[in-house]
């Protein structure tokens, strides 16, 4: 009898602790979220029907949709722009976000489409309030491997990626340096012109 009471009270304590800690995240939640998207992307790029040349546009659109579900382009654009973001009007911010998103799609789309049976292993995940970081290792068919990390932000109950780093080199940091330089030297209009040109060049 005493044992049953003890077990029940321990269960109650655990239950109450769980209730009192609403921000607690179950282990691996971020990894599950990222894995879902990565798996969806792999399904698209390995689809033989979509690989056909005439389906190129369809494939890119499917990729864009799958990746867009977890990538927060507005947050990425805002962070890449850094201190100059506040100097832009709302219209300019929207224009810049769209351009930045298409630059990313065109730059990385081709790389993702050249997928060749790379394996992805998920590593350590750290969650701190509304911020999370997840590390993964990508192993190529030839056996080379590199670290691919994600930084995520919890927005409206969902984890959204705002930065990606490869071998410790951050994507946002790279663009922030470049955008800041162009903005300071030649202004916003020149930056937009450059982004458009680069995006078009990558799309070819």
């Amino acid at each position, binding site marked *: 009898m005493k044992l049953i009471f003890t077990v029940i009270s321990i269960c109650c304590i655990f239950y109450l602790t769980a209730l009192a800690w609403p921000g607690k995240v179950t282990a691996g939640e971020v990894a599950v979220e990222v894995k879902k998207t990565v798996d969806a992307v792999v399904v698209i790029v390995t689809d033989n029907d979509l690989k056909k040349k005439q389906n190129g546009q369809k494939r890119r659109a499917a990729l864009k949709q799958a990746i867009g579900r977890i990538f927060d382009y507005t947050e990425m654009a*805002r*962070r890449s*722009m*850094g*201190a*100059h*973001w*506040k100097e832009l009007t709302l219209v300019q911010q929207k224009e810049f976000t769209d351009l930045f998103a298409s630059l990313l799609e065109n730059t990385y789309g081709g790389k993702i489409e050249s997928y060749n049976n790379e394996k992805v292993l998920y590593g*350590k995940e*750290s969650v*701190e309030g509304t*911020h999370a970081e997840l590390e993964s290792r990508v192993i190529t068919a030839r*056996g*080379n491997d590199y670290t691919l990390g994600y*930084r995520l932000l919890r927005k409206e109950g969902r984890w959204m990626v705002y*930065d990606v*780093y490869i071998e*410790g*080199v*951050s994507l*946002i*940091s790279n663009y*922030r*340096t470049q955008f*800041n330089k162009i903005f300071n030297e030649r202004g916003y209009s020149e930056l937009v012109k450059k982004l458009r040109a680069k995006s078009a060049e990558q799309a070819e």
Partner: protein
Amino acid sequence: MKKASVEAVVGVFMLVGILSLAYLSIRLGKLELMGGDFYDLSATFNSVSGLKSGASVEIAGVEIGRVDRIELDPSRGYMARVLLRVRTGAKLTDDSIASVRTRGIIGDKYILIKPGGSDKILLGGGKIRETESAVDLEQLISEYIHGKI
């Protein structure tokens, strides 16, 4: 009487000498006796190889503070935790990026801050989340020369 005044002059001379020496040590050792003009921030890196305490913290090449302490952060799988002392005048947003950089090819390591555009300003005791570790140039070169397995 005369002897006493000579001794007093020597005493004063010694005192001035000691004070000058103390002043010189503080200036050369870059010690801060009063911590009023600075606030502390921390940042966690995967590796800070080559970074030393006392290294400068810069924005666009302008020094805004110094590395106060470097220690292991066992709570995050043995990463390096760097404590920075930043001048009060330099306000950093919570999306600032801290990178370990090298001056020149083989120069000293320092911390470069790339300011962000967020509305939240980091207060004393705050943490810079976005960090970039030191790139191991020697490792990259050796992988390039000998090939990566």
